[in-house]
């Protein structure tokens, strides 16, 4: 965990008092909505269909138990008793009153949480691998760098009014769990031949109306130069990014229009001016930040404790363990993913009671730490293996032990037309129906790893372009219609999915997905060939045939 010091806390409190003044001026009419809009957005406040929506930052997806409890408190006191975890490791509340927002922010500030830059045209919450610091084989903990960048990008005086939003993600593992290739800047932590830490820098990824996979702009930027290099990218973007058309304002369009070579020359020129400035980070600064990340005092524990051996007889436990428990870098410990995708429920939602109970479980079994992943699930990162059976029982009671992580019912979905004022179609009911269709655990397991992503409009908050099966809701003649793509992926081999054919109606989506899955089961060469590999091998055609033969 990163512990805020007095300096961080002071800034958060100053921000709360500024926003309190802004809300007061808005409610008195001193600020017009046009003026206030950007100010509220910079504090995570949107207007949705039913009310204001309030998005709270969870930097790089790391939460302490007291912070999760405070989120539960906000859900209970200022909202309707639940929150929604998002694809950028944040949480949002759907019914907050503007007049009460400053109080909610003040309550969150008590535990070092804020909503700065969770929306608006600025640098958004820095995201990272939800297994950072505990994943086996990780080069080093990317959160040290995430925190450095978080600080640098918070209330940045030059880059708070960019052409459009700007998202940075960092990974330090071979397997990319942070989806860095669909971010404005993706950073892959690597070591050079001298063993020094640096980054491969990718730029210009993003989904939305015009999706792009990020391109490598520089193969190695030394850690000490990373802030100046990011600053150079942003300075080029701030000056030349398009401001005439909201759909062409992201950096991906600038990179695409200039071409990566010309764009990288611009960045390089700018960087040469500023790399030897006060932006250069000396080792002492890194060490200072590193020193404020505390790690648990792990015990020396056996690889296979008796508790685990005994529990193996319980098929319910075994199904969950095989699905939701991952290896930890320390022997005797595990990383436990907590599915927020129970059958028939909205993906990513958690009630205040669940959050409170999870905070207690984190204290008891995970050194008080919780993680949030971009798949809209949570994780307990430091669970002793001997505690797994007891943890499973407790999670099961809370409805949080659905063994469907990475399976077809582990669906990523945006809020869609049920909540969102931008949406053209509903997402959540589609997800709910799909989870019911594939609720049989044996069937889901037989299908294997398969990610379904659903967005209710072209803005692609559900990342449908990179779903193994992607579902995009659009509107046609006043009706909800869904376009279906296959073959996308968000990991280190990120790719955009391909459309299988004409859109289908709301009631047909689940049938079509069933057809696609049946086609896959029939077409795969062997049980180990995953859906995305079969699609890669055979292309869209056989799936298209199957789906449209009878329609």
């Amino acid at each position: 965990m990163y512990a805020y010091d007095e300096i961080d806390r002071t800034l958060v409190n100053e921000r709360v008092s500024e926003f309190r003044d802004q809300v007061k001026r808005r409610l008195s009419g001193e600020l017009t909505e046009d003026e206030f809009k950007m100010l509220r957005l910079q504090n995570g406040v949107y207007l949705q269909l039913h009310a204001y929506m309030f998005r709270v930052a969870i930097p790089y997806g790391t939460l302490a138990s007291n912070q999760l409890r405070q989120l539960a408190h906000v859900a209970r006191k200022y909202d309707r008793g639940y929150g929604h975890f998002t694809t950028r490791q944040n949480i949002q509340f759907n019914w907050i009153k503007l007049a009460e927002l400053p109080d909610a922010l003040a309550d969150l500030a008590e535990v070092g949480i804020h909503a700065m830059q969770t929306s608006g045209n600025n640098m958004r919450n820095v995201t990272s691998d939800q297994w950072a610091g505990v994943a086996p084989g990780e080069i080093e903990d990317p959160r040290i760098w995430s925190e450095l960048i978080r600080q640098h990008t918070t209330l940045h005086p030059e880059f708070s009014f960019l052409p459009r939003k700007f998202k940075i993600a960092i990974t330090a593992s071979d397997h990319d769990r942070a989806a860095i290739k669909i971010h404005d800047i993706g950073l892959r932590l690597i070591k050079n031949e001298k063993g020094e830490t640096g980054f491969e820098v990718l730029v210009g990824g993003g989904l939305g109306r015009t999706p792009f996979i990020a391109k490598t702009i520089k193969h190695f930027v030394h850690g000490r130069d990373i802030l100046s290099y990011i600053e150079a990218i942003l300075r080029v973007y701030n000056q030349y990014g398009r401001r005439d058309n909201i759909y062409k304002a992201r950096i991906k369009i600038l990179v695409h229009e200039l071409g990566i070579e010309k764009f990288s020359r611009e960045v390089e020129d700018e960087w040469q001016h500023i790399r030897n400035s006060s932006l250069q980070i000396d080792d002492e600064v890194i060490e200072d930040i590193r020193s404020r990340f505390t790690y648990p005092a792990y015990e020396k524990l056996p690889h296979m404790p008796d508790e685990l051996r005994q529990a193996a007889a319980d098929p319910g436990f075994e199904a969950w363990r095989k699905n939701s428990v991952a290896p930890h870098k320390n022997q005797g410990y595990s990383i436990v993913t907590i599915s927020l995708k129970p059958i028939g429920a909205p993906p990513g939602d958690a009630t205040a009671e669940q959050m409170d109970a999870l905070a207690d479980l984190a204290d008891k079994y995970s050194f008080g730490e919780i993680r949030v992943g971009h798949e809209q699930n949570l994780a307990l990162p430091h669970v002793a293996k001997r505690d797994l059976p007891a943890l499973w029982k407790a999670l099961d009671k809370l409805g949080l032990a659905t063994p469907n992580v990475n399976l077809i019912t582990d669906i990523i979905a945006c809020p869609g037309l049920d909540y969102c004022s931008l949406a053209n179609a509903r997402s959540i009911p589609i997800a709910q129906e799909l989870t019911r269709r594939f609720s049989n655990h044996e069937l889901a397991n037989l299908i294997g790893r398969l990610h379904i992503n659903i967005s209710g409009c072209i803005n692609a908050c559900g990342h449908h372009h990179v779903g193994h099966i992607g579902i995009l809701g659009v509107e046609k003649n006043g009706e909800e219609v869904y376009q279906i793509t296959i073959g996308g992926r968000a990991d280190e081999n990120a790719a955009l999915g391909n459309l299988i054919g004409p859109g289908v109606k709301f009631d047909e989506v689940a049938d079509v997905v069933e057809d696609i899955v049946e086609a896959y089961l029939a077409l795969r060469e062997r049980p180990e060939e995953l859906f995305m590999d079969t699609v890669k091998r055979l292309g869209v055609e056989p799936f298209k045939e199957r789906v449209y033969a009878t329609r």
Partner: protein
Amino acid sequence: MTSPLEQKKIKIAGPSVVTANRTWDGIVVYRTAANGWSADLSDAAIVRNSDEAKALLAESVADDVGAIGPYIAPVQIGADGKVQPGNLREQIRRTGVTIGSPVQV
């Protein structure tokens, strides 16, 4: 549903109302004939042609402190005279999410 936030031209095909969200708490409101806002659709002023719609929208926009993001939304009027939302989006805004709250589940 095409987002009404992109509403540029005012052209209405049938009876319509002006709807927005109340500034201080964000709840869904409808413009009334008495130059105010109501949370109840049955209180809404009904407009039936573009000129009426334009006038009602203009007066709604002018009340920037009262409510935000006003736009024109279609309604249907039943045989009994009851006013109903004219599309799915407005139906959802009026009656809430179609999926049940996780709190009650």
